[in-house]
């Protein structure tokens, strides 16, 4: 079976303006959502408490609300269904420092009399830990981006690095926008999802860049736009295929992986789609716009090869005992 047989080059760069406009609109829309609706930080970053309760029958949410009412400890409590009608989570902004009777125990006591239930999960994150996790999380995103930037600059050229980072920022912004739009709890797993998107989207971008690099160094064509078009076309089958297989698994994870893994799977689902798009329509055009000069690169490469050869010659002479 073949999706794309390489017979002619598609003119991707011709459409790049259109794609850019689309990207800019979507990214701006994402920021608008982020600013107006904001991210819904979960306990990991905001601190607070999550209590997951499973009833033997359908959870009596009304009675639960009534049971928690009145106690200032539960003032911020929200109760929502979690995966099935008999399972709910109670989210609270409050946390407690007492070890023997914590806010989870208080919740269990308060709910006594609402039915037969089991407390299946209690997450309590105090304010200091929350702030620390947030700081670490932001730090890790920056470090990952920086590490990637350095690596790509080292293996390719700085313009490639900058182009891929722009694509990454594009992907992460849209993913965050979607997370905010759907009001998904931002916890450590969403952060892990974002970092995975970084890796995945870059993976796609690099496969395309590798072709471009190959076209630039080996080919006779010096027209960058044409080289990019050919490279993107030739990698199109691979891009589609890998995106599909990854999409399959992320989708099954989203569908069947259970409620707890949902935010993570959702983040990835967005990331796979956007990441694939950005490697074709964002990263490559930027390379073109940055004015990457193929002829100039050839000269540089030739110079580098010459220096290497001279060094080697010197070394040989040295080893041979001539100097």
């Amino acid at each position: 079976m073949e999706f794309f047989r390489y017979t002619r080059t598609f003119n991707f760069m011709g459409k790049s303006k259109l794609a850019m406009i689309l990207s800019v609109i979507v990214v701006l829309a994402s920021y608008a959502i982020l600013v107006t609706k904001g991210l819904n930080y979960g306990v990991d970053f905001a601190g607070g408490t999550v209590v997951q309760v499973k009833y033997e029958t359908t959870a009596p949410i009304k009675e639960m609300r009534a049971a928690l009412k009145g106690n200032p400890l539960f003032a911020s409590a929200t109760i929502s269904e979690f995966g099935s009608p008999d399972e709910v989570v109670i989210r609270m902004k409050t946390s407690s420092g007492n070890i023997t009777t914590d806010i989870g125990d208080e919740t269990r006591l308060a709910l006594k009399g609402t039915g037969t239930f089991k407390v299946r999960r209690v997450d309590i994150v105090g304010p200091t830990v929350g702030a620390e996790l947030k700081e670490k999380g932001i730090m890790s995103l920056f470090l990952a981006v920086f590490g990637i930037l350095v690596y790509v600059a080292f293996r390719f050229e700085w313009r490639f690095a900058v182009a891929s980072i722009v694509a990454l920022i594009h992907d992460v912004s849209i993913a965050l926008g979607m997370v905010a739009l759907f009001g998904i709890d931002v916890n450590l797993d969403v952060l892990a999802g974002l970092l995975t998107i970084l890796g995945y989207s870059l993976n796609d971008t690099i496969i395309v860049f590798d072709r471009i690099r190959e076209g630039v160094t080996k080919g006779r064509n010096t027209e960058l736009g044409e080289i990019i078009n050919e490279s993107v076309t030739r990698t199109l089958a691979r891009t589609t295929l890998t995106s599909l297989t990854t999409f399959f698994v992320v989708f099954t994870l989203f569908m069947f992986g259970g409620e707890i893994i949902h935010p993570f799977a959702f983040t990835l689902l967005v990331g796979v789609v956007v990441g694939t798009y950005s490697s074709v329509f964002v990263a490559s055009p930027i390379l073109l716009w940055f004015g990457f000069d193929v002829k100039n690169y050839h000269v540089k490469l030739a110079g580098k090869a010459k220096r290497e050869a001279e060094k080697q010659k010197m070394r040989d002479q040295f080893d041979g005992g001539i100097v």
Partner: protein
Amino acid sequence: MKLNYRIVIFALAIIFGISFSLPSLTQSEDGKKITLGLDLQGGLHMLLGVKTEEATKSRIKSITASIKHFSDRNDILIDGLSFNENEISFEVLDEDELSKFDEFFQDIEGIEVIKNRTSISLSLTPEEIIKTEKEAISQAIETIRNRLDQFGLSEPVVARQGEEKILVQLAGIKTQEEEQRARELISRAAKLELMAVDEDRSARVYNMSDSDAAEYGDIILTDAKDASIKYLVREIPILDGGMLTDASMGFDQNNRPLINFKLNAEGAEIFGDFTGRSVGKRLAVVLDGRVYSAPNINERIGGGSGQISGNYTVMEAKDLSIALRSGALLAPIYMMEKRSVGPSLGADSIKASLVALIGGFVLVIIFMMVYYRLAGVIANIALIANLFILLAVMSLFGATLTLPGMAGIVLTVGMAVDANVIISERIRELIYEGKSMHKAIEEGYANAMRAILDANITTLIASVVLYAYGTGAIKGFAITMSIGILASMLTAILGTHGVYQMLESRITKSKNNKLWFGIKG
């Protein structure tokens, strides 16, 4: 068919993968296995903080107690002995006796003594405060570890995290009650104090406020069993649990559980001196600020042993003696983070993620076979080998598999075929260009190599950062992703290359590109 070094390495890798992943897959008794994270097997994870300033306070209190004992023993008359946060002060009545304290003070480490004629004030030096606080943390870790080791769970984790946090992880907690017991054992201060009841004013205790009591150098404590019963005791204890050498559960005449304790030589001496002086008065046995008993002293008690009786169940008495034996916490601890997962939820998570794993796996395998035919089959072999190697490496290192870790494995399935997709596409291209099968395979691998390396290394960078900065379960994701990527490079690049080299003559002879690579021509 020819053997080549690649296929040999690939075969060895598969054998390694299968044999070392078997203990984990079959859950056998022997062999190294993957540990399930707390989120999958259920358990309790806590991050505890230490109120270090309390350690300084209790140090001050205990120095005060020793000054009291020293002056009593040497018949030095002192007045107004009192202490606050970080200062002890008193007055020596006879100026000639001032010098007697010099030697005594020299034996106490890290204090600053200021003498103003006959009044003396003592405080801890700033270095000593830092030292005390540091010790409080190390001591808390040590104490909690001791207590949990005797609790009966397998492999409790107690470790320092960062400068001043304590990580406690208890896997395999089955019930709410068990978790409760563990938390009580951990947090119990287990501070034993023997205190003198102020018999002169004791009758008035029910009409006194705390500040009234403080004026006389007393404090009001309540009874452990009945909070309405109050005792007025001297604020400076006779001695504290630091001089305890052993504690164990025993039974009284009526077969009710109680706790026997023993004091060290110094404690026994102080205890003996005090009881000798105080016949007819009462002695309060105070544990964590509550009075457990206040027996009358009938005679001097030597030997330094005593009892704490209370309305204990056997379990409570056992846990309490463990806590006393492992020593008191120098400073109280509090909870900064807690994650507790019930075993049933863990089992549900395993089930759900397995469904996702198998579902995703089957989809990918079928897709690869339909799209690439035999080349897809070869890629699938690499994928399966990849999973086994991933499990084997994790088993060997005893790595922890968490729920995000499972997600990482699922994701690996999707991304590990990528290398083979890249290679197969390259080979297809070269076949279309009319290259010979040999050239198509060799150049296909050579061309694909760079892209695969660069792409995987960048993903690896992201994973490593995630590992370094991630906490708890998220680390598990980074681990499975990283191992998965590394294993995929071995199986996809080296392994499948070996398979193609072995089959090359067959592929060439068959001239059936549709069967082998899923393309026409």
